């Protein structure tokens, strides 16, 4: 079982959390001007990378709050977790400093 660091509560076991999918997908600012293809891309298409993935998690059985995480989808190793309004981290820098 994974240990996940909630930015508000600290390290807790994986079963306290719910995965929330890819992070940093902003809702379109002008919905009426989007084409069908752009809507489909927003609603359905996902990066689904093999490697570093920026994703949302929610501490459902804890503080209940959403936060973001960077995880390696090959090893399931968490590189960092951060609050929703923190800036998107630089993946290249994170990968270089990755503990193994």
């Amino acid at each position, binding site marked *: 079982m994974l240990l996940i660091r909630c930015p508000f509560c600290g390290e807790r076991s994986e079963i306290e959390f719910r*995965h929330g999918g890819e992070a940093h997908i902003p809702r379109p600012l002008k919905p009426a001007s989007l084409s069908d293809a752009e809507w489909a891309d927003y609603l359905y298409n996902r990066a689904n990378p093999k490697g570093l993935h920026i994703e949302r998690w929610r501490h459902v059985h804890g503080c209940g709050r959403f936060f973001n995480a960077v995880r390696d989808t090959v090893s399931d190793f968490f590189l960092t977790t951060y609050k929703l309004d923190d800036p998107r981290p630089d993946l290249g820098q994170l990968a270089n400093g990755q503990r193994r």
Partner: protein
Amino acid sequence: MKYSLFSLLRQAASGHEHWPAQWRDPAPKAAYDVVIVGAGGHGLATAYYLAKEHGITNVAVLEKGWLGGGNTGRNTTIIRSNYLWDESAAIYDHALKLWEGLSQELNYNVMFSPRGVLMLAHTIHDIQVFKRHVHANRLNGVDNEWLTPEQCKAFCPPLNTARDIRYPVLGGALQRRGGVARHDAVAWGYARGADRLGVDIIQNCEVTAIRRDASGAVAAVETTRGEIRARKIGVVAAGHTSVIMAMAGLRMPLESFPLQALVSEPVKPVFPCVVMSNTIHAYISQSDKGELVIGGGTDVYTSYSQRGALHATAHTIEAICELFPMFRRMRMLRNWGGIVDVTPDRSPIIGKTPVAGLYVNCGWGTGGFKATPGSGHVFADTIANDRPHPINAPFSLERFRDGVLIDEAAAAAVAH
């Protein structure tokens, strides 16, 4: 060599030491008419039907590991076609009809065993949904019948139908034509069949890039064994589809999750059918070797790790132990994970892509094995004629843009 009683007797006379290899191990040629990426059941079936039904034999199937080593060798081998929507019923029943004659077709015993698939209802909602399935299936010519708890117990004696368990059995939907098959034999049978028709199956050959010409159409794949030119490329890469399609600059409506399964120690025949419980995620049958084959729901987060978390397996075991108390003291031999590519509507994507010459067959999620023959059959037709077969036309990539989803996610009432 054709397998028959005669060939068996002849090989027996010489101590079974002269059976020929079932397929060649060719070096990749510089160019093929069609390259299939992924030598699982679906990819091998595609190559087989390309050669058999469309006369396209200059085909290579590229596999990064060994053939049938991905989800084909990792699933729980359940075969059924009782899906709700017309489009799904058409493709899964097309596959089921092919399963029924597959051993003869391939001259290879795939051990298809239509022993019946019983799907349990545990809530009022389950009952309503399953009865709706029964009626919808009948309208589509797919067999499915409603059983009372007593009838469920008669059909599957190990089942616990006590009313005081956490999720009591309130009834079930039974598809008698459903069942199981030997998963490895399916890959091996299609591999041997395709190989005999001239298809090159190239293992340990990972695709690293897709090259396109000035018009944007596909021209070649770069692999760990060199460049291979092809004007038509069919991607059948299951959990790694997003990775391969990104090489052609395409984003896919897919997320890859680990799905775990496990087997028990082998015992004498004790379990007569396949039982599924979508509500509490427990899927069980007994293999011909005697092992109980058990599957659960997917893990909760996307991953390519092919492992998954132990608590997900424990959850499945708890459900099995409650439904089948006689298995409480069985020991489990091993568990494993496979990476499944899940679409938003839980229906597959089979067809052309925005890139000329690039075709995709993916998104089978947690239940692709049952569709193997039908999927390969219609995908081969799509590649050969550069247009979708009528059966897979609704399963296009464009359905997400056009809003015509085939929503088996909602229909299955599974807590995905």
